[in-house]
């Protein structure tokens, strides 16, 4: 079953993954057995009862109630068993342990943000400790999204105006991919994030050091880091090509005309307001789709991004 698992399923890296995989394996193997049975019977009948002449006499037996009952009842037992198994595991997946470590998740087009109880917001990177249950409290700022970590076998829709939760407990340190699995528009398939599982002490260390720029890092470099981490690069290029939003190349100091006909020179104030209140000034030729980063990027973060944009000449 392990071999089957590795052929079909991603690595199992949470406490609940093994249960899900076992059930997946059970259903798949049972199905294959029954399927092969049907296949063999069909092929055998095709060969044995091949038409010899147009006057072949065929069986007149057109029903057998016992047989019908047998092939109705046996599947009933099987499916009730499978249902019960799935149901108990589903409850496990749905009820987070009371001592779970809580992280707030915000989904919006097209990035994820993870808010820790120390006030730090980590864009597109979920850092969690190994061997401790983690509960995610999720909400969406715009349309439906769905939070999916294949390696942990968890998924749940993220809904505007409502909180939904998932939980998991990672069993090994390392990185896994996070997908958005509810279609959410142009860059749906780029709404990726990473979950990074640390050993407990590394996690505590990360939590302590998180937030803000490392002391030895230049502002613009930090801005570049935020540019990739926060999902800016999904919509804004640095090489002048047109994505969902305007490119950063040559942006700073240029004159921008907006959809309402007005125009402004792109200075610090403009860039900051574009990050916090994107729908106020939408550059002509683009759709008003950028979400706000209010509460996700701090003032220092925004300063760093402005520095980074200045460098894109």
């Amino acid at each position, binding site marked *: 079953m392990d071999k089957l698992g590795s052929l079909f399923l991603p690595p199992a890296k949470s406490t609940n993954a093994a249960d899900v995989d076992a059930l997946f394996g059970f*259903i798949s193997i049972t199905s294959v057995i029954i399927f092969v049975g049907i296949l063999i019977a069909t092929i055998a009948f095709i060969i044995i*009862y091949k038409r010899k002449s147009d006057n072949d006499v065929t069986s*007149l037996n*057109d029903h057998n109630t016992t047989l019908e009952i047998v092939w109705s009842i046996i599947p009933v037992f099987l499916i009730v068993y499978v249902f019960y198994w799935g149901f108990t595991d*589903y409850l496990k997946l749905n009820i987070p342990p009371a001592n779970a470590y809580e992280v707030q998740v915000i989904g919006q087009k097209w990035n994820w943000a993870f808010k820790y109880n120390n006030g730090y917001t980590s864009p597109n990177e979920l850092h969690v400790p190994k061997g401790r249950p983690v509960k995610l409290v999720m909400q969406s700022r715009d349309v439906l999204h769905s939070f999916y970590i294949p390696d942990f076998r968890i998924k749940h829709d993220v809904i505007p105006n409502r909180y939904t939760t998932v939980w998991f407990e990672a069993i090994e340190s390392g990185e896994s991919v996070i997908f958005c699995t509810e279609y959410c528009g142009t860059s749906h398939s780029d709404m990726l994030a990473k979950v990074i599982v640390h050993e407990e002490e590394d996690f505590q260390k990360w939590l302590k050091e998180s937030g803000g720029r490392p002391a030895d890092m230049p502002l613009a470099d930090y801005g570049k880091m935020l540019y990739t981490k926060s999902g800016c690069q999904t919509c804004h290029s640095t090489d002048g090509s047109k994505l969902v939003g305007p490119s950063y190349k040559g942006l700073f100091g240029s004159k921008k005309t907006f959809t309402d006909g007005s125009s402004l020179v792109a200075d610090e104030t403009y860039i900051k307001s574009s990050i916090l209140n994107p729908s106020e000034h939408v550059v002509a030729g683009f759709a008003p789709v950028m979400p706000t980063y209010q509460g996700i990027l701090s003032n220092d973060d925004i300063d760093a991004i402005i520095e980074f944009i200045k460098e894109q000449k």
Partner: protein
Amino acid sequence: MSTSSGINADLGLKLKRFVTPDHPEVNYAQAEKGIKAWLTTVDHKKIGLMYLGAIAFFFFIGGLLALLLRAELWTPAKTFLDADAYNQVFTLHGAIMIFLVLVPSVPAALGNFFLPIMVGAKDVAFPRLNLLSFYIYLAGATFSLYSIVTGAVDTGWTFYTPYSATTGTSVVSMTLGVFILGFSSILTGLNFIVTLHKLRVPGLTWGKLPLFCWSLYATSVIQILATPVLAITLMLLVMERTLKIGIFDPALGGDPVLYQHFFWFYSHPAVYIMILPGFGIISEIIAIFSKRRIFGYWFIALSSMAIALIGFLVWGHHMFVSGQSTLSSIVFSLITFFVGIPTGIKIFNWVATMYKGSISMRTPMWYAMIFLFLFTIGGFTGVTLGTLSVDVHLHDTYYVVAHFHYVMMGGMLIAFLGGLHLWWPKMTGRMYNERWANIAAFLIFTGFNMTFFTQFILGAKGMPRRYYNYIDQFQSLHQFSTVGTWVLALGFTIILIYLLQSLGKKGVIASKNPWNGRSLEWLTTTPPVLENFTYTPVVIHGPYDFHKPIAEFEYGIESHGHGHHDASVHHSNEESVNA
């Protein structure tokens, strides 16, 4: 009961034997000529053929879109489409294939043509309504296609709110199109139910009805019960976009999960609209080509009805991770499993029908076997998806995409092809080239599995659906799947060529009963005459009583211009002719 006098005594009718010639002097297509006669006809057979043409056209469009999608997925990043175009293409592919192809395919094309003949009627109960439903279908299709011109739609065929309430594309014209198509579907269902209840010829009891009719009956029940709910849901969505009524859009105080409940309340039963008629065709094919009484007639007939009814109670299995309550999910999962039972019963009965039969592997039978293979896989993976904990992992991945293609395409479309090959000689009077037909069936089988079995693996590994870009490790599987679509395309092209070729000057003329069938459509001329029969058939034996001499299926009573069955005929002095 080997003589007609015995039969006469049983039914209290003066029966005559009518030996119909293979070919009529004037068939239905020649009876009224010209484009105008076709466009204004109320003849169910012509309407069925017009549907067939329209459906084939939309299948061609939908198929091209699918080829585009798979080609774009050749590389993990942009291959040749940009993201918005890709999103529009998959939306259109889904919407066209479901609303314009699969939902009407068997009922509106083959059902329209054969249901009235199979019950011995001259037409459906409301012929003008039938023509109206065809034009409603065209109007709906026009609306849907209009949305492509005005900026396409990028919501996915499910139109989930709030995305569909806010995106800038032409959602309104698309949903109005689907709304209109719904009425076409309702009218067809209504017509079939009344036809089956009121227009059967004497002797054709419910227990002697061909299983294809039973499956269309079950389909029609779903059509009339579920489609109105979709209509009102789409109406609310249109209002949401135009008036901002706020029922589904959370930004206006509404609830997006409610939309999903409304949507799936129709769209899950719609899945059975798309598969039940396929079951009917498979029952016909397996019985005819095994030349054997169908095994478990009532189990097959009533399991269709059971599926139709249970199918209304399982919509929530699309929403295990959507934010409905845990209790609802559990209940929906349990009921979902119980839909599997009647489906399993059908499969076992079909296989049992082949036991001790006289099996002839002609083209339609190959399609029935392909159906059994693919649909069984689709059914089993449905169980996997219905399982709560496993579905959490598989929901909205390629596993789901593969599952519904196995059920819808491997099931319904293959059954449709089976039916098309079964009845093509009857509809057109021409026989296709069977060698090429078998080659095409083999290509489709191979291409289909290459394309979609791969997607089970992709999905289980975590590849989400509706993804334009994907992570590099999935590339080889994606490429294999794309190659599969080329094989499929080749198969469909071959079918198109030999079917058209059979209509040409060199086409082989078909006899009236090339497969030695026993239901009423095989007893009339090929192609049928305008009002299907020149007499009123009287049904004595079941449609699968292959052991009875064909002569005993040819009894009927004189037709008197109006209608067929005629209760007063036994007062007449007509002599019966002994067989």
